[in-house]
């Protein structure tokens, strides 16, 4: 693994964790090692708050009512933040976890929608996380809407998109304008590199800040307890991206 890869991993974990402060309960779903580590970091710095549930973990998961409990919990408003990824994400904050091409016999098939078509509606703060930031992943229009960013007014929807975090920058979802705006640039990125690698249009405010780098305390936690905890569910990630062996 390279030094710069570890630095980027630390940065992404830190950026996401800062969005989770002051929440009561954060849940993390399938294939989400960085959001998982971020939730643990927020909880570690907050002395146990927010509470964290990581699906697939035995130690970071207090559910006792089976696979449905996450969704029941979310439906009641007992989960404050969740994460969604996607093979494609577009400027309307639609996520595609199903595939590329014409449904159903698509050219490229992804695993499937998981709980996105429900959780995106009922969890107040849904953070979209997609590391690969290219015009291939951040597209003008997704090929399949697993879960929509926007819905008709008469549809029950206390939840929805909060932000989109990539390996290059952070976009915030503007509720009023119903689109993304560029919020902060990770080290080495410019307004031009973001524009060039983003397939959808977004607001570019006059002031775009630099993404805050992790503190020594945050780095220490990431490579200590948090690395070990995340290795339980994501052993390959922990060893390749954090140099932590399970």
């Amino acid at each position: 693994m390279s030094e710069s890869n570890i630095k980027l991993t630390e940065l992404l974990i830190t950026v996401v964790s800062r969005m989770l402060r002051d929440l009561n309960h954060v849940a993390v779903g399938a294939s989400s090692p960085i959001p998982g580590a971020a939730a643990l970091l927020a909880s570690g710095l907050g002395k146990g708050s927010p509470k964290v549930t990581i699906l697939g973990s035995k130690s970071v998961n207090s559910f006792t009512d089976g696979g449905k409990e996450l969704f029941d919990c979310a439906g009641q408003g007992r989960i404050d933040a969740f994460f969604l990824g996607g093979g494609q994400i577009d400027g309307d904050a639609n996520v595609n976890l199903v595939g590329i091409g014409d449904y159903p016999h698509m050219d490229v098939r992804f695993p499937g929608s998981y709980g996105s078509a429900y959780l995106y509606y009922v969890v107040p703060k849904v953070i979209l996380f997609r590391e690969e930031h290219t015009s291939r992943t951040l597209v003008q229009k997704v090929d399949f809407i697993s879960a929509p960013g926007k819905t008709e007014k008469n549809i029950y929807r206390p939840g929805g998109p909060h932000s989109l975090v990539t390996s290059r920058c952070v976009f915030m979802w503007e509720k009023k304008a119903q689109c993304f705006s560029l919020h902060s640039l990770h080290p080495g990125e410019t307004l031009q590199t973001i524009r060039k690698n983003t397939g959808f249009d977004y607001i570019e405010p006059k002031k775009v800040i630099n993404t805050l780098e992790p503190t020594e305390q945050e780095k220490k936690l990431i490579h200590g307890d948090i690395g070990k905890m995340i290795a339980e569910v994501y052993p390959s990630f922990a060893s390749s991206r954090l140099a932590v062996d399970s």
Partner: protein
Amino acid sequence: MKSLSIKNLLTSLQNLVANIEDGSQIVIPPDYSFVPMEITRALIRKKARDLRLVAAPQTGLQADILIGAGCVSEIEAAAVSLGELGNAPRFTEAIKAKKIELKDSTCPAIHAGLQASEKGIPFMPLRGIIGSDILKYRNDWKISENPFKKISNDSILLLPAIHPDYAIFHAPYADREGNIWIGRRRELALMSHAAKKTYVSVEEVRDTNLLDNEETAANALPSLYINGITICKKGSWPLGLSDLYDADRNHLQKYASQARSKSDFSKYLESYVFV
């Protein structure tokens, strides 16, 4: 004197899978929960065909290997993936080649359909989903108005009951009465309650009765729901089982790479299934 009712349920692996007819609808657990891999290998050996799988609510290795071996005609799932090892190769290939029917779903919709069956009711309402393309391709799902609405125009989705022929899973142990220890993996209870019949493999039978003691009773799936039990050591291998053993990562990696090509997948079956 206690009845030893497990005696009526115990059978060989071969006899157990002989009960599962071609064309059956089978509900299977997610990859992290008590996956019956030895039963799966026995289904492949008996050349099961046209199985209709329902993943509760997602699956990975188990469905991929059954699909690759030609046992499956349809799958309903919220996702099919090998997790950290990437896409499920035989599933992905079968979708592209139009070899299986896929009913794309989302996790709580599958839970809700099973819960409807569990209650013996025809459907279950669920929030969300309206606006997702999943709904576009599910002619069996319907939008209704909330009959208890306080505001006007409160649309809600109705999902038909999912009533599988069989639920199958692998558990750490059965007691002498045929009750199965499932711990906190309550989705196994949901699967079993919803299915017409449940067949289970276990690591061992223990000379105890889980229902005798309140502390252990909460961990039990009562034998009331169980139609057959077989004993298989390491019955979830290469996946893990609860606190008993971890997933065999080296083997899973080997599967993930061998399953990428049809001929290497056949070799995999020769080495690990038809033995």
